[in-house]
């Protein structure tokens, strides 16, 4: 009955929302397929999620709003915090009260815990246990940061205390306690004696199916265009010990960076040489791998633009589980923006060395209370020819914020001098349309004169008149 009420409420509310966010996707890494709708009001947001996770239909909802300086969430949310090497993320359903100030963060949760799915496109929870928790973090003026985390998750108890100190040239951090009924300790020390030289040591315990311990020592030096780094790693899991060592250097010459790295683990040596070139928005990389007397070649790269970003990355990661040591991994990431919608696709390698993927789409829809929403148009796509002009009012004064659409759909806005320009690929006239409803300038306007089209290389003049409100 509660679920039916929530559905009716959440489906009815979007009609009056200022902005709606719609998301949908699938992830093998996060284990779910589904979608979410979020309705944004001036100072609150209502969300509803539905989908399938491990073959089961799942549903979630939440309402976040502000009340006397507190941020309150009623519904499904992840109680997740990390500090000083410690971290906890539990799916919850209940009441969250959060207060964030400049030096303090305080969060209290009361409700239930259980299996949940927190993805960029769906947040759901299933009640399993009674739960409660709090998180407190305070930054002191002398560089100390104190963090406290406590949670009851059914029969699992967590009490973790963290403390870090940021000095002039060093940082010390440690945390310890009980993390979901298991003893836990983590420590980290960083030291930077001079600019460009740093040392770091870490110790971490992870709790998977068995107890996993990982330690590392590393050093980094930067000398102008040259960087040097070295590290020693050690991991223990299920009575198996895995050790590794790495060293590398890089040289940067203009837009080209060459990097060579040596990796050794389980008596296996891997040499990786990478040459990378950055050309404006493009990145190209060539990789040579040498291991066990064999040489292999790989290529990577990417493009980063306002509408599309693509990358193919090659990296070497340390996998302590299964005594795998250093392994080569390749990840692919694609992000596409069409008007107000984004499409994302990404592959990841999990700790068991399985390739997982996540893909989702998200879009914003402007509601009736959001004011005069700007419609979606593309922008200048670049080119060597320039269409330029100026917008003035009836007194000849420059007008800022006027929207002008060019042939092909590109929309440009006039600046404080009333001037606008767009780059086009072809040296031919382009039709001009003044989009009165898209003005960023206040007031109501009418067109006195506007040329039918604009020729690259010449300036056009657009004259407008302010309409008196009836």
């Amino acid at each position, binding site marked *: 009955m509660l679920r039916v009420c929530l559905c009716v*409420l959440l489906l009815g509310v979007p009609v009056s929302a*200022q902005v709606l966010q719609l998301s949908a996707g699938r992830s093998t890494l996060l284990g779910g397929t589904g979608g979410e709708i979020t309705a*944004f009001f001036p100072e609150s947001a209502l969300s509803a999620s539905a989908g399938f996770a491990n073959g089961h239909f799942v549903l979630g909802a939440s309402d976040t709003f502000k009340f006397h300086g507190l941020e309150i969430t009623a519904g499904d949310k992840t109680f997740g915090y990390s500090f000083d090497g410690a971290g906890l993320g539990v799916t919850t359903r209940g009441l969250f009260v959060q207060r964030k100030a400049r030096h303090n963060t305080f969060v209290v949760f009361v409700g239930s815990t259980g299996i949940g799915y927190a993805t960029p496109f769906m947040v759901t929870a299933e009640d399993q246990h009674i739960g409660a928790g709090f998180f407190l973090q305070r930054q002191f003026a002398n560089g100390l940061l104190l963090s406290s985390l406590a949670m009851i998750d059914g029969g699992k108890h967590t009490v973790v205390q963290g403390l870090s100190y940021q000095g002039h040239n060093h940082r010390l951090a440690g945390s310890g306690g009980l993390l979901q009924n298991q003893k836990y300790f983590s420590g980290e020390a960083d030291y930077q004696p001079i600019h460009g030289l740093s040392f770091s040591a870490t110790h971490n315990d992870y709790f998977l199916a068995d107890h996993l311990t990982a330690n590392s020592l590393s050093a980094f030096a930067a000398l102008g265009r040259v960087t040097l780094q070295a590290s020693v790693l050690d991991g223990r899991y299920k009575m198996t010990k895995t050790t590794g060592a790495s060293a590398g250097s890089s040289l940067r010459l203009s837009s080209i960076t060459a990097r060579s790295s040596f990796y050794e683990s389980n008596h296996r040596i891997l040499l990786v040489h990478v040459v990378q070139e950055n050309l404006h928005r493009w990145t190209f990389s060539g990789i040579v791998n040498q291991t066990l007397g064999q040489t292999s070649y790989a290529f990577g790269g990417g493009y980063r633009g306002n509408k599309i970003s693509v990358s193919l990355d090659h990296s070497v990661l340390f996998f302590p589980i299964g005594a795998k040591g250093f392994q080569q991994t390749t990840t692919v990431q694609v992000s596409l*923006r069409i008007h107000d919608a*984004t499409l994302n696709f990404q592959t990841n390698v999990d700790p068991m060395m399985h390739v997982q993927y996540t893909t989702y789409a998200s879009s*914003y829809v402007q509601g009736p209370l959001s004011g005069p929403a700007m419609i979606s148009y593309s*922008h200048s796509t670049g080119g060597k020819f320039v269409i330029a002009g100026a917008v003035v009012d009836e007194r000849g004064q420059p007008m800022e914020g006027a929207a002008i659409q060019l042939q092909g759909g590109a929309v440009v*806005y006039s600046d404080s001098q009333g001037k606008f320009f767009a780059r086009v690929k072809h040296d031919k006239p382009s039709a001009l349309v003044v989009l009165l409803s898209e003005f960023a300038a206040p*007031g109501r306007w009418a067109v006195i004169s506007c040329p039918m089209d604009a020729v690259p290389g010449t300036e056009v003049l657009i004259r407008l008149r302010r309409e008196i409100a009836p």
Partner: protein
Amino acid sequence: MKRASSLLLPQLLFFGLAVSAQTISPMIVECGKKCRGEFSITNNGLTPLAVTVEARSFSLDTLGRATNRPLDPAVDLKLEEGSARISPKGTHTFAYQLKCADPSCSVVLLSSMVVGHTAEGILVRVQLAHTIYACEKQKDCRKKVRAAAGGKVE
């Protein structure tokens, strides 16, 4: 259901308009006589944002305060775009090429945007600056410009 509706109503009535901060990155860059650079504006709001970019030369006084003026003839600046519409929660990158004919050039790219646009008036007008220091050599260009202006150099 009745209780849920009664909780929802006060929210709709009493909460004011939230204006999210917009961000620019990077704020300051140093480069040589010829350089190619870019800066990004992030729209942290939930509605689309119209942004216009204008270039100005500037000079510093002894206290490091900047005075803007029209772009100097010694500066050859080619902006890829002069304006953009940025989607909700989206980021837009503006690219440029700059050539400086003087020993040093100080240029600021001012990004203007209107947050909370209505037909009747502007609620908030935001201007964010991306500052470019161009010298013969990129290294310590900002320090040199500040020192030349008689300012205190850290």
